[in-house]
């Protein structure tokens, strides 16, 4: 266990992309897991405020039949307060004014101060504003992370498992098995991925998150399988595999116990890469309406934002919030992947090493200068 912790610490030490990436991903995972505790509102909960007096309301009500100065003063005083219930709203006005309001005026006040909850800009109540339907964008993002992450990691897992099985088996077995598996990889590789996903998703109707995860998982393993195959081919030739065969290890044990642990860094990279692809593909699928629109995910948020012409009516928050969230999450995964590359290929980690060389070089130069000065003084 301490070895495991040690290797984790060694992985993150001086590996800033990995640290940043892991922080981002970790934050999202925590948000998703504790969504009900963190999110200020429910995912589909509408803003309950139905009545609210604004300047516009006051303008429209000014000088109409039955209006008195007292009522007008009360309305002005109540400006900006929200009410969930019509009767409560009207009773508050009556009690504050101290007189009864005639029925037609009541109707007019209620009508003119009716509050459309949609598209509220970011405020203290709604940090990221609301959607057209009056749902809190921040809460939707947090709840949406649950499904989006689940689909992403699920599809990543499916894709990685298939890639490992196909790639490592092909490399180990060789011969006809290898040829067949490589053929399958090539077929899946040349089939354009997104159109295939579109066709499958359309065929399944409004695909739920599970079907989307499976569809993405089973269409995104080919690239990883090829990479893993080529890497395991070189391990296949190593003598410890021959030695394991010579002592009579079974084929499956050789693949799972002897070979796979040697490419674990590649598998991890493959998992992260597939997850990233899956999150983006899921958002894409749902954005074009092939997902289940009643489920709150980052993709359906974009779909609704587009359907509600959020950008055209100036509700940029409804569109930008999920878009930026997806970008940050994708960036986090990409950084994590980059950090893994640093470990498997330390040459990429040039920055830090170059700093060390520079330091050494400066030290040497300074010594040289000091020596020259010394010599001059002696002369």
């Amino acid at each position, binding site marked *: 266990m301490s070895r495991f912790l040690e290797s984790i610490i060694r992985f993150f030490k001086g590996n800033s992309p990995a640290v940043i990436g892991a922080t981002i991903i970790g934050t999202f995972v925590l948000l998703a897991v504790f969504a009900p505790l963190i999110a200020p509102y429910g995912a589909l909960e509408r803003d309950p405020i139905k009545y609210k007096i604004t300047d516009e309301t006051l303008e429209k009500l000014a000088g109409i039949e039955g209006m008195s100065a007292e009522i007008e003063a009360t309305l002005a005083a109540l400006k900006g307060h929200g009410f969930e219930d019509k009767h409560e709203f009207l009773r508050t006005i009556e009690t504050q004014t101290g007189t009864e309001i005639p029925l037609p005026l009541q109707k007019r006040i209620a009508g003119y101060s009716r509050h459309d909850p949609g598209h509220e800009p970011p405020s203290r109540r709604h940090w990221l504003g609301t959607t057209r339907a009056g749902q809190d964008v921040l809460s939707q993002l947090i709840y949406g992370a649950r499904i989006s992450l689940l689909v992403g990691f699920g599809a990543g897992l499916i894709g990685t498992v298939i890639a490992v099985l196909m790639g490592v088996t092909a490399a180990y077995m060789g011969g006809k098995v290898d040829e067949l598996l490589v053929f399958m990889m090539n077929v899946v590789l040349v089939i354009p991925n997104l159109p295939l996903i579109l066709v499958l998703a359309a065929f399944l109707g409004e695909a739920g998150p599970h079907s989307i995860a499976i569809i993405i998982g089973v269409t995104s393993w080919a690239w990883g399988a090829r990479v893993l195959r080529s890497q395991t081919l070189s391990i296949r030739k190593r*003598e410890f595999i021959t030695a394991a065969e010579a002592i009579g290890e079974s084929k499956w044990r050789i693949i799972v116990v*002897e070979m796979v642990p040697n490419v674990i860094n590649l598998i991890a990279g493959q998992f992260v890469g597939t997850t990233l692809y899956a999150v983006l593909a899921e958002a894409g699928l749902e954005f074009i309406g092939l997902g289940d629109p009643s489920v709150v995910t980052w993709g359906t948020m974009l779909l609704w934002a587009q359907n509600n012409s959020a950008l055209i009516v100036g509700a940029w928050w409804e569109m930008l919030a999920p878009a930026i969230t997806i970008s940050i999450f994708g960036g986090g995964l990409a950084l994590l992947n980059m950090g893994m590359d640093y470990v498997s290929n330390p040459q990429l980690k040039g920055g830090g090493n170059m700093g060390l060389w520079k330091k050494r070089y400066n030290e040497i130069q300074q010594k040289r200068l000091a020596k020259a000065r010394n010599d001059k003084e002696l002369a």
Partner: protein
Amino acid sequence: MSLQPIMEVRHLVKDFPTKQGIFTKQYMRAVNDVSFNLYPGRALGIVGESGSGKSTSARVISLQYPRTAGEILFQGNDIATFTDKASVMAYRRKVQMIFQDPYGALNPVHTVFHHIARPLQIHKIVQNKSELEDKVYSVLEKVGLIPVEQTAKKYAYQLSGGQRQRVCIGKTLALGTEVVLADEPTSALDVSIRLGILNLMEAMKEDFNTAFLYITHDIATARYFTEEIAVMYVGHMVETGDSRDVTSNPQHPYTQLLLSAVPDPHKRGSRISLPEVEKKEIPTWRPESRGCPFASRCPHTTPQCREQMPPLTKLADNHFVRCFLHGG
């Protein structure tokens, strides 16, 4: 020789396909008509340069490659008859290979314990976990990897080359192997460490009566470790005999050439002198090739050498040579 051989190799031939057309198939003959016996408690050294078929012979014996022709008898039974899993496993337990590169022969992701424990588990030599631990530790002690408990936890990269080779030898010890095919076990090691490994194998030979096939290109270590030496060239055995005979009285021109390449501090200036020969490519032997394989490099080549394969000639009680210079 009254001893009963544990392993008999008779006229072994191994071809590899080199070019595969639709109608034609070309083969390379890596091992041609090779025969030798292995005896318990004795070592046979196979000496030769790269590509002489030394390793291929060992790999055929250890079931890594199928043979093309010939017989391999293990305790009197042809190994081709071992087709069911149980007999193959039993054979594998008794015949093990030690590899040239101790850096490649151990899986970098597993500990020493795993490497010694797996053979014991696969062949069900131990019954439970505590017995397994005891056995692994005793094996590590036997191969001199002490302190055993610390060593068992180590990974291959934490060991030196000599220690890794000791782990590999420990695997064969754990199995109670009767025939060890040692494929250049010392050539990747520092000279200072070689002797330790050779002495360890020597001890195995004496204490456990193990038969060794010691493959090397270093005739000096072969003389030190083995009782018999077979010199191979391009898949053929050109000279065999007791180690002392072959190294002190080499008869085949190739053996003489090999020995002249060994620096000997005691015999300064008395190197076996060979006329300068033109550097020639080592021929690729094909099933249809004729003549003596060494003819292209030999200083004594006659027209006969290019036409006919010289027969094996008996020079002494246990000293054979394949050359027209000696009878034939």
